[in-house]
Structure formats: C-alpha cells, structure tokens
C-alpha cells in the first residue's frame, strides 16, 4: 500500500469495564494508525476487545484514557451531542445483524442518516437511489427487511452506511450471519468501496479467512494489539473455498 496520512491515529488507549467492584481491563495501551483508503481487519478471539476498539474508533463508546484522532479530530473530548454529529458525518456502520428498522422499507432505512442533513427530499432521493443501486438493490427499494434475504439486508445496511458519504466505515462481523455466497458478495462490495470510492474500512472478524480480504490484519489478544500482517498475507479470492461462513439451508 502506498504511504498515506493516517486517518485514524490512536495513542496509549486504555479501556476497562466495571463489573460490580471489579475493574476489567479490555484494551491496554493501544497504539494504532490506519491509513486513509485502507481496509483493516481486526481479529482475535471472543472477548479480546475487538468490538470495543471498533466502538471507540466509531465514537459510540468512550475510552478511559488515550488519544484518538480520527480524520484529524481528537474525538475524546467531544460531548455526546458533538460526538453524535461527528458520527453522522464521518462514520458509516455495518453490523453483524444488519440492524435495519423493520417497519421501514429499504429506501426509508437508507434515507435515515440523510434526515440529519440539510438535504432536500429530492436530493435525499437521488442519494438513496444511488446508494441502493451501488449495492444492486435498485429494484428492492420498497421492500421491507423481512421481505429481503440476509445478504440483501446486509447490502441495504451497506447502502445506509455509505449514503452520507462518510470517510470511515466500521463493520462488526459483517459476514457473521450470512451464508457463503452472500458473504462473498458483501466482501466484494466492501472492497469496491475501498478501491473505487476510497473509503477506509475497519472490519472486526473472528474468522481469519474473512480477514484475508483486508489489506492489513491486526490481532488483539486480551486487549493488546500483537501483530500486523501486510497485504501479502491475504488477497482477493484467496482461500474463499475454505471460509467458515454458514452455508445456505438446503
């Protein structure tokens, strides 16, 4: 990967949870740089702190200490309101269970983040239609989540993540609930977002084979970043036949 200015700079990050009188350290002295346009996979066993680190980068959780500069802005001192505004403008979210609003159509779900912008209804429509076409769901706009397959729902979620044009997309186990074919589609889409649209993607996964799609893989073990692997370690299509994705029911 060519050298780029890091869009995510994390220094001396600590995070712990309180369980009763016990303090449980989750992240310890994390230093992490993520370049703009990079596709980074965060790996590690359950409870290693992957999702916590992702949440901190996305501004939906707060660190105990440390510096987090995202897109040149130190987000640690931001108030809840400012953080919400920052999130809406800068971060797109893809979740394992899609997290679509069931009473809204695909179109309405994708439109949600745009309601917080000053765009007119017509402008919103253009953006939503573009985003849904990008994920090949231009013909499913009026479908409700329950009328879509898991893969289609995740694609709607991706459209919702990209529609406000954020610089960073965070994905928490985006293929974890999908069958093999749908998982490939989602990973292809994410690659497309990186290569064609220059998005920075940070993906949490516990599956090493899914992580091979990323440019960089970082491992978390008991709250500590332990190793870095470069783009040579994975690559598009490599090992796909061995992925541990769920296969579709017969």
């Amino acid at each position: 990967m060519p050298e780029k200015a890091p869009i995510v700079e994390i220094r001396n990050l600590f995070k712990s949870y309180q369980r009763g009188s016990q303090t449980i350290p989750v992240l310890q002295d994390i230093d992490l740089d993520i370049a703009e346009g990079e596709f980074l996979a965060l790996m590690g066993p359950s409870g290693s702190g992957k999702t916590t680190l992702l949440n901190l980068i996305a501004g939906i959780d707060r660190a105990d200490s440390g510096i987090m500069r995202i897109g040149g802005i130190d987000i640690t001192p931001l108030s809840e309101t400012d953080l919400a505004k920052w999130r809406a403008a800068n971060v797109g979210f893809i979740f394992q269970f899609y997290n679509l609003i069931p009473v809204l159509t695909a179109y309405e779900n994708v439109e949600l983040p745009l309601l917080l912008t000053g765009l007119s209804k017509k402008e919103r429509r253009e953006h939503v239609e573009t985003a849904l076409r990008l994920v090949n769901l231009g013909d499913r706009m009026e479908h409700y989540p329950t009328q879509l397959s898991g893969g289609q729902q995740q694609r709607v979620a991706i459209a919702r993540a990209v529609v406000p044009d954020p610089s960073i997309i965070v994905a928490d186990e985006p293929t974890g609930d999908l069958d093999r074919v749908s998982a490939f589609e989602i990973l292809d889409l994410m690659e497309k977002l990186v290569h064609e649209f220059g998005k920075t993607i940070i993906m949490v996964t516990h599956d090493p084979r899914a992580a091979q799609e990323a440019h960089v893989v970082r491992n978390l073990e008991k709250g500590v970043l332990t190793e870095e692997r470069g783009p040579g370690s994975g690559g598009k299509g490599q090992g796909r036949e061995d992925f541990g994705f769920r296969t579709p029911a017969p």
Partner: protein
Amino acid sequence: MYTLKLIFKNAFRHKLRTCLTILSVAVAILSFGLLRTVVRAWYVGVEASSASRLVTRNSISLVFPLPLSYREKIRQVTGVKQVSHGNWFGGIYIDEKNFFPSFAMEPKTLLELYPEYVLPPDQKAAFLRDRKACVAGLKTARKYGWKIGDTITLKGTIFPGNWEFVLRGIYKGSNKNIDETQFFFHWDYMNETMKKIIPRRADQVGFYMIELKDPDTAAEVSLAIDGTFKNSLAETLTETEKAFQMSFVSMTEAIVVAIQLVSFVVIIIIFAVSANTMAMTARERLGEYAVFKTLGFSGWHIGAMIFGESIFITMLGCAAGIIFTFPAAKAFGSAMSTFIPVFNIETKTIYMDIAAALIVGIAAAVFPAYRAINIRIADGLRRIG
C-alpha cells in the same frame, strides 16, 4: 413528518397489543366520561338554580309545613317581587317503580317564577283554566306515552287517596340542564280535597318560592323573611335556591365523592395499562434506539418517538372512548332517568377526557423514554442478535 410516519408505523407493529391497549383506554375514557357526567348530573339542579330566587321552608325541617297565611306577609317584605308556594306530593303512578317528582303548585306564579319551563301558550292557558289540570315534563310524558287530554291517576303517599288529573300541558326545558321529568298540578285542587278529607292538614304549605327584585339583595331579604316569623310557631329558614338544592346534594355527598374517586381510579388504571405497553415496547426496541443513536439521532429524536407513540395510542383510545360515550350516555341516561333526570355529556367532560388521555400518554412514556435516551449505544447494540 418522518417522525410522525415512524410513530404511526411503530404504534401498529404489534397490532394485537396496540389494539388491546386502545380498547382499554377507550373503555376507561368511556367510564371516566360517564362517571364525571353522573357527578355533574348530581349538581345539575344546583347549576340550574336562579340567583334571583329564594326558597323559604320550615326552619326545623322540610317535612314540617308552613301556614298559607305566610304568603301575604312574605309578599310584603321589601325586595320581594313574586311569591309562589307548593308541596311535595310524592304520588305513585300505577306502580312504585314509576317514580317521577310530583308537586302541588300555585300554577300562575309557578310559571312566572320558572320561565325555563316552556309551555305553548294554548297549553299554558288550558293548565291555568282547569283546576284538575296538570303539566308534565317532556321526558316523563314520553316515557309513559301520555298525550294532552289524558287522565292520569296518582296514588298519594303523603296525601292519601287516588288523585285524578287531566294532562293539559307538556313542558320542555329552555336549556338541556332543565329537569324534564317533573309533574305539576294545582295546589288549590289538593288543598280543597284536603279540607274535605283531613281538614287539619289544609292550608299548609311545604315551601315558598320567592322571586327577588334584585338578586344582590338575597341575603337581606332572607334575613328579613326569617325575622318576620321569628318566635312564631313555625319559624322559617330562607335560603337561595342554589343553597336549597345544595342541601339535597349534601345529603348524598358521600356517594358523589365515591364516584369521583372511582373516576380517578379509572385514570390510574389506564395509566398502568399504557405504561405497561410503552415499557414493553421500549424494552423490545432498545437495540433499535441504539441504532438510531449510532446513526447520529439525538436523545430528543428518541424521546419524540416514544412520547409520540404513547400519546398517539392513548389519543386513539380517547377518541374511540369519546365516540362511544355519547350512545352509552344516552342508554345510561334513559335507563336511569328515574334517578338522574338530566344526563348530558358536557363539553367540559370531553375536554377532561382529552386532558386525562394526554396526561396518561405523556406519563406512560416518561420512564421508557428516560431509559431509551440514556442507554449506552454499545449496551443497546449488544441486545441485538
């Protein structure tokens, strides 16, 4: 606009639960409306009272009569414009269950003192002309199918014997608060009969109704009347018509208080039902609220959705309750007309229904909204899956 759409869609996400909640609120609002109307009906006589009328009765009790001779003395008191007199008759029509208030009244002054009893001129003339004439309120006449010219026989309970009257008029109230169940006949007819059968009870009056020249002089005139008969064999108690009516209400005040309490208990019940629905709804959707927050929506948006949904559901129930209150009140009023002669849903009652539903809608959403607004996004997202 989008929030409204979301509120509407969310409200009917669990159709059965929402419909049952709406039904509960509707039934409660209907009950609340009916109970408030019963309470109001209790006071309708008080509200219909005129400020320019006084009532004079025996100071010991209404049961004890006053001499007819007091009439002229009362008429001579300064400030008195007109005096009428009468007796509670308490007659039975065919059977005891057929109750309606019946009075022997001096007819001419009665109609002058009570312009709210509206009689067509020909019926009024016929009533005044015929000594055995009677007039009945429209509701009573309708209830028993009476027509002008019909002979009506009442069995006296206080004044023994069977009393025959000819219906010469059917009065209507000048407004909906006027009791249209009463029955009036000539006091002279009763008095003359009493002279024949129980002479010692003749020339005895149950109460005097007095019209004032100036309503502001009610206190002075009352004192003057009572002063006139002080230290006599039958001392008087004069009070405004409102106070006189109120004395009847006071006798049953415990019932009124009980009904009022029950009406407020009904509100507490709908609060519990609505709060339960909203608590379940918000708990189920904590993950979704976290998603909204993740996307940048503020606590205000989340609060608006929860409060909006709660108010929407309770107001739908309120609307249904109000719609059904009118036919229910009509049926209730007609079934209870013997005891509650005036039973009309007031505009104020409707406003109270709406206010109660609104307060319940807001109160029911407070805790769920607080919880949803304050949940940490990470905790909310953890609930999904």
